[in-house]
């Protein structure tokens, strides 16, 4: 039995002339089909259309985000005929797929990145193209373009700062104000915790990205820096050691107001404890506020955002986070650039305005955009919006993040991030009660080993 594609109609016609039998009729049919299909493939317009497809690796899985991207892709196709395939993946999987696609010689034309170290790595290898000409068209918030040797290699689409959330209603009832010092913060935690299910704070200490991001704000507030200008690890030098020790000892005190199963806490434990009314503080991007506006929880008006305190209160800190779109080098780079140029003036704004707190705008014009101003989430949370805007337009908060530490943007900081040196220091201090000075030695050793590889 043989099957021949009828090129004209697109239907299949099945002949039953026996296995392997070739007769005049079937030969003519096959030849006709081949000629027809060759003609179709040879048509210049169709051929051009076939090659006009670019792939966009999306890492944003929050409700509605993928839909906005798909809508944008459909609009773009209607406008230009170019198909933009949106491939949605978790953050962990995305980097593996980006690497694999580049190695295979068929890179994703565009992808979203969360770690600037990855961007630096690809830039150093010439796998991605500069986007400076696009970013130059707008004004940006602080510390987000993160240029590498004078060129910007990603188009930032949000800030993801690890913001400390507090129970506003509890603060108001007890006359508390957001803490600037460790002592003030401990006092508030003590007032909320009941030694049973109610805890003052939930900050993860697992060996994972959640700890690197959500639990390091106290270090930045205290003025801790990880490297000198030659990439030497300095957390154990005369200046940094006491600072790191102070934060570790503060954590040891705070631990009495945190859950006992702290080592298991990851992204969601703090969120869920807060949502259950059992935690006064946790750190995340303000999606709980968005859900309150959407009517998905009863915390409307009950959540406040604040910074991480320090020992003296002289400075407060924040762990910075960002995401950006990257364009890879390849045969479709020009097409990808054309799409990105269109995207940043169209879908980009819709994408941000769909979840304006989760995707805090890095581009300053967005804050004045009517779509943003009239977003129900923005209207519902003016204090939070102002707090977030101040973070990126003023310089009164010490910003830090492991992957942007060091004299320049480099994958070196990424290696230290992946070594989980800070989570291990915290675990040593809180779970094994190791003296803070020894914890610093352990952390410094892990960082140096990571850098040496």
């Amino acid at each position: 039995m043989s099957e021949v594609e009828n090129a004209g109609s697109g239907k299949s016609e099945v002949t039953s002339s026996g296995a392997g039998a070739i007769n005049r009729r079937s030969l003519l049919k096959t030849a006709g089909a081949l000629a027809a299909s060759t003609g179709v493939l040879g048509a210049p317009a169709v051929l051009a259309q076939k090659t006009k497809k670019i792939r966009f690796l999306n890492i944003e899985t929050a409700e509605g985000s993928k839909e906005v991207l798909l809508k944008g892709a459909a609009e773009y196709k209607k406008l230009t005929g170019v198909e933009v395939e949106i491939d949605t993946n978790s953050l962990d999987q995305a980097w593996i797929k980006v690497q694999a696609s580049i190695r295979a010689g068929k890179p994703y034309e565009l992808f979203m990145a969360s770690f600037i170290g990855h961007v630096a790595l690809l830039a150093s290898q010439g796998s991605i193209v500069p986007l400076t000409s696009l970013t130059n068209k707008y004004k940006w918030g602080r510390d987000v373009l993160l240029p590498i040797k004078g060129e910007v290699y990603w188009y930032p689409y949000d800030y993801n700062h690890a913001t400390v959330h507090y129970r506003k209603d509890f603060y108001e009832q007890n006359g508390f104000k957001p803490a600037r010092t460790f002592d003030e913060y401990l006092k508030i935690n003590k007032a909320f915790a009941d030694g049973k299910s109610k805890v003052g704070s939930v900050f993860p200490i697992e060996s994972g990205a959640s700890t690197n991001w959500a639990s390091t704000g106290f270090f930045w507030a205290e003025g801790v820096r990880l490297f000198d200008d030659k990439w030497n690890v300095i957390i154990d030098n005369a200046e940094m050691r006491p600072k790191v020790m102070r934060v570790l000892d503060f954590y040891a005190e705070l631990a009495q107001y945190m859950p006992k199963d702290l080592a298991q806490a990851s992204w969601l434990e703090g969120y869920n404890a807060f949502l259950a009314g059992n935690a006064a503080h946790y750190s995340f991007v303000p999606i709980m506020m968005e859900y309150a506006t959407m009517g998905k929880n009863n915390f409307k008006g009950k959540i406040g955002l604040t910074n991480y305190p320090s020992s003296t209160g002289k400075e407060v800190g924040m762990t910075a986070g960002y995401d950006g779109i990257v364009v890879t080098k390849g045969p479709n780079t020009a097409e990808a650039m054309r799409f990105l140029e269109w995207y940043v003036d169209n879908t980009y704004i819709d994408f941000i305005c769909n979840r304006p707190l989760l995707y805090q705008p890095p581009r300053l014009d967005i804050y004045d955009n009517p779509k943003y101003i009239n977003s129900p989430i923005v209207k519902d949370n003016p204090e939070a919006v102002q707090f977030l805007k101040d973070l990126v337009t003023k310089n009164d908060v010490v910003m830090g993040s492991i992957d942007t530490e060091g004299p320049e943007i480099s994958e070196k900081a990424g290696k230290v991030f992946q070594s989980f040196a800070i989570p291990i220091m915290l675990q040593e201090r809180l779970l094994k009660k190791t003296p803070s000075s020894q914890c610093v030695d352990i952390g410094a050793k892990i960082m140096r080993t990571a850098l040496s590889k």
Partner: protein
Amino acid sequence: MSATAQQKMKKSGLDHLLTAMILLAVLMTFLLILVPLLSGIALSFLKIDSFALDGLPSFAGLGNFESLFSTGAFNNALKNGIIFSAASVVIQLVLATLVALILNQTFPGRAFVRTALIFPMLIPPVVVSLLFRWMNNQSFGIFPKWLQSFGMEPIAWNTPELAMTQVVLLGVWMWTPFMTVSILAELQSIPSSLYEAARVDGAGPFSQFFHVTLPHLLSVMSIIVLLRMIWTFNNFELIWLTTGGGPLNSTETLPVLSYRQSFTLYELGTGAATATVSFGILLAVVLIATRFLPVNKD
């Protein structure tokens, strides 16, 4: 054509079919087991820089193995793997034997209990792990609430002291049914006449267990213990999902270490070296077991 000739042709056709099926099985084994295995072993002798996408792998000799043994991580993971496998399998064997003995008796609802016993095996490890985590969460978990209602402190499972106990208990909960079912099947095949004869000879329940039941169970016990040891030693998902190998590497076994090296630290060569050594250890265990245990009994 004579009947004999027809029979010969039929036999020859059958032989061809059998040969083809065997060849297919060999080919599949080669493609799906041997090729990945050999690739993994080859990888352990290569230096691959995940941070250099345009760089080609280079021969590293025994460099990855030296790197592996130069830190305490390997010894720690090996020790944890042995504790995890041995504790899990011993507890499972004892429990499974007791449960199988009970289920071998006649009592109302026995069929239901036997069916219900299988349920833990049907639940994916990711569900078991997450449920356990949520149920034990101090802020909103049900177990801490119960303990607190009796005036007791919640148990902090994820500490260096208790984390291993936690994963062992979860493993026991999940996989004891497999052992129970296997032992129960063997129990049902023991002729009742043997017990009658033992009773006539004055043997009590304990004596019957040690002189009739246990000798009959030894063969199946050897097989399931060996299988469970291999599966537990190689288990990745339960530990990874429950503790991630922590805290402070207190539950990090060789598969978890290999994953961490390969996909967290991006040291693919060292990760492959860990997997190769782990494979070698298991191979040695299997060879010794098949030599000395009654698993190859005809």
